[in-house]
């Protein structure tokens, strides 16, 4: 084999070159076949931490159903103001193509005079994939849930506002929201509405059982708002009500007397069967009587 390889060095080298080149070309071709899609969103959680999330996928140009998440891509998240660019952190995409960065509540963002926070998620170009970048301008919306109970009427007040550099509240306008109750497996929506002048008030339903202590977790959510992006706030309140009284079952094994229907059914069945036995016995006596008469006739 070795002798042949030496003999045909030129051919061997050519085949090896083709093999390696082909591999490189294939990789390049693979990347070329896909159109990259890069998106960026932010959400403020109930603990006031902000989640920055970039989604990086490739869509097959020929087959729209073929979506390939970009795995392990390094995404850098920045906060910019004019020419200042502050790196908030980096994160690598998961096998679903998602890179997340959580910024704690007390982080000092660069904010413009109107209260806007300018955020950028950036993927820097590699040999095969070009640079991708997305920008979001968002205002830091504060959501508050205030629970009050007056004369047994349970009321929830949702407050939505922004704070300026001096800490003065500015009420939010035209903010659509949904309020949920957290259940064991999912969230149950109880009201949808729009916050006007920074407030929305509604009467809380009085028929939720809550957990074993009667606690309910109420969650208010603003989703993909143009100015504030997504914001969630939740709070636990002891407003759970057991509306159903637990009744003791009457069908017990140890009850002194059986249900009436049981006596009725049993009586009907037994009377039916025993009446039939009686009917049979009566006929047997009639047979006997006839036999006795015949015997007497024969004897006489």
């Amino acid at each position, binding site marked *: 084999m070795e002798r042949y390889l030496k003999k045909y060095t030129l051919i061997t080298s050519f085949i090896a070159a083709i093999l390696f080149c082909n591999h490189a070309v294939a990789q390049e071709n693979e990347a070329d076949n896909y159109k990259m899609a890069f998106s960026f969103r932010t959400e403020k959680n109930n603990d006031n931490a902000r989640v920055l999330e970039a989604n990086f996928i490739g869509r097959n140009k020929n087959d729209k159903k073929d979506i390939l998440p970009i795995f392990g891509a390094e995404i850098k998240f920045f906060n910019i103001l004019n020419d200042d660019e502050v790196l908030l952190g980096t994160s690598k995409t998961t096998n679903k193509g998602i890179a997340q960065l959580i910024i704690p509540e007390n982080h000092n963002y660069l904010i413009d005079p109107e209260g806007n926070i300018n955020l950028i998620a950036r993927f820097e170009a590699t040999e095969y994939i070009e640079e991708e970048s997305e920008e979001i301008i968002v205002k830091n919306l504060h959501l508050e849930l205030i629970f009050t109970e007056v004369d047994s009427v349970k009321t929830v007040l949702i407050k939505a506002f922004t704070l300026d550099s001096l800490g003065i509240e500015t009420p939010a306008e035209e903010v659509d929201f949904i309020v949920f109750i957290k259940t064991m497996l999912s969230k149950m929506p109880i009201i949808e509405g729009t916050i006007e002048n920074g407030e929305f008030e509604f009467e809380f339903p009085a028929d939720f059982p809550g957990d074993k202590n009667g606690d309910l977790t109420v969650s208010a959510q603003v989703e993909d708002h143009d100015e504030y992006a997504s914001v969630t706030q939740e709070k636990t309140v002891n407003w759970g009500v057991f509306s159903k009284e637990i009744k003791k079952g009457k069908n017990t094994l140890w*009850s002194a007397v*059986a249900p009436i229907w*049981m006596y009725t059914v*049993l009586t009907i069945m037994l009377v039916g069967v025993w009446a039939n036995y009686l*009917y*049979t016995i009566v*006929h047997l006596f009639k047979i006997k009587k006839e036999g006795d008469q*015949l*015997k007497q006739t024969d004897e006489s």
Partner: protein
Amino acid sequence: MDVITRKKTLVKEFSPMLEKNSSLFRLWIGALVAIILVGLYAFVLQVINGHEITGMRDNVVWGIYIINFIFFVGISYSGAFIAGILHFFETPWKNSVLRIVEITTILSIIVGPIFILLCIGRLDRLHYLFIYPRIQSPITWDIIAILTDIIGCFIYLYLTFIPDLAILRDSKELKVPEWRKKLYTFLAIGYQDTPTQRKRLHKIIKTMSAMIIAMAIVAYTVLAWIFSLTLQPGWNSSIFAPYFIIAGLYSGVGVIIIAMYLIRKIFKLEKHIKKSHFIGAGIFLLVLALLFGYFTFSEYFARWFSHKTTDNQLLDTMFNNYFWEFIFANYIGVIIPIIILFFKKLRTIKLITFAAVIAVLGLWLNRYLIVVPTLETPYLPIQDTRPEFIYYTATWIEWALSFAGIAAFFLFFTLLIKFIPIIPMSGIIEQEFASRNKKDKIAENQE
């Protein structure tokens, strides 16, 4: 041939069965009595020492006694059902098998409940069941159902005996002791086979046959409820009642086929119990095997699919501790009879009987698997205890009493067929006259 002459020839034909007691017969009776005596000795020991000398303990409180009880009672209900159907629909070939079915029915319902008495730890408190019955309890329903059924079966059996008892009473050629003659006279209640008497008897037999079909279904359902109304893994099932009925029919038909084979062979009754009877019973057994297989699969499949911990533990016990029993009861006991009875070429008398034997053994094991593994898989396991307190093995006491029960069944069967012909003579005459009348009518119509 007129009716009186025909009656005489039939009595002559069957008299050897009623009159002669061969040495083999005496030996057979002696062996059965010996087995029963051993059983009685075991019973005395059990009464003196209590259930300690059986394999039953805290967990497995029911052993082979209850299995024998369900098995025998199942055969009885099955017999009652089949006898009722044969009578009610006036099946043409009923005569040859009817008495076998009826005797099997009545003897099973006598022997079966004896086993339930053996399960009771304090027999001295037995009367409490009647003094303080709880209508809510399925046990009470079962006692009522069994007692009603025993009386119903006795009446039904007696009704079907009356015409033959009358024939035997009137037969002067029959050489039997005087007490038997007197007993025939007493039990025949002056039946002379007059048209009025015949019509009356037919009427009440038909009513009773319908009644015992219904009673068989109700009583066996109640027995199934004793299990299915209990929240035990393996018992709490909604299909248990129909499953029990099908299983009871399956074992009952199996026992009847075996009885037909033995009686045909011993008393040389090939003229009366023909191959066609075996094929008919075999096809019925095939249908029941398919139904039983279907119910068994549904029962275990639902249990396996439920993913309930206790059910899975039960299935583990079945497949580990009772692997071969499970395979025999639910695979061999179903598939072998199906194969034999499905193919026309295999439907010989011997093979049909073999299929019936397999079915009966499989059914007994099936009952064992319903009772014992469930009790060995309780909801609350007992910690740090001896294995014999958890797992069940029957002792010789239980086996002796079980065989005594089977011996009692055979003994009573043998004695009954010594008392009255196994093929109803009145039925043969009726059948012959009915076919003669039919021929005469056809001839008249042709003229």
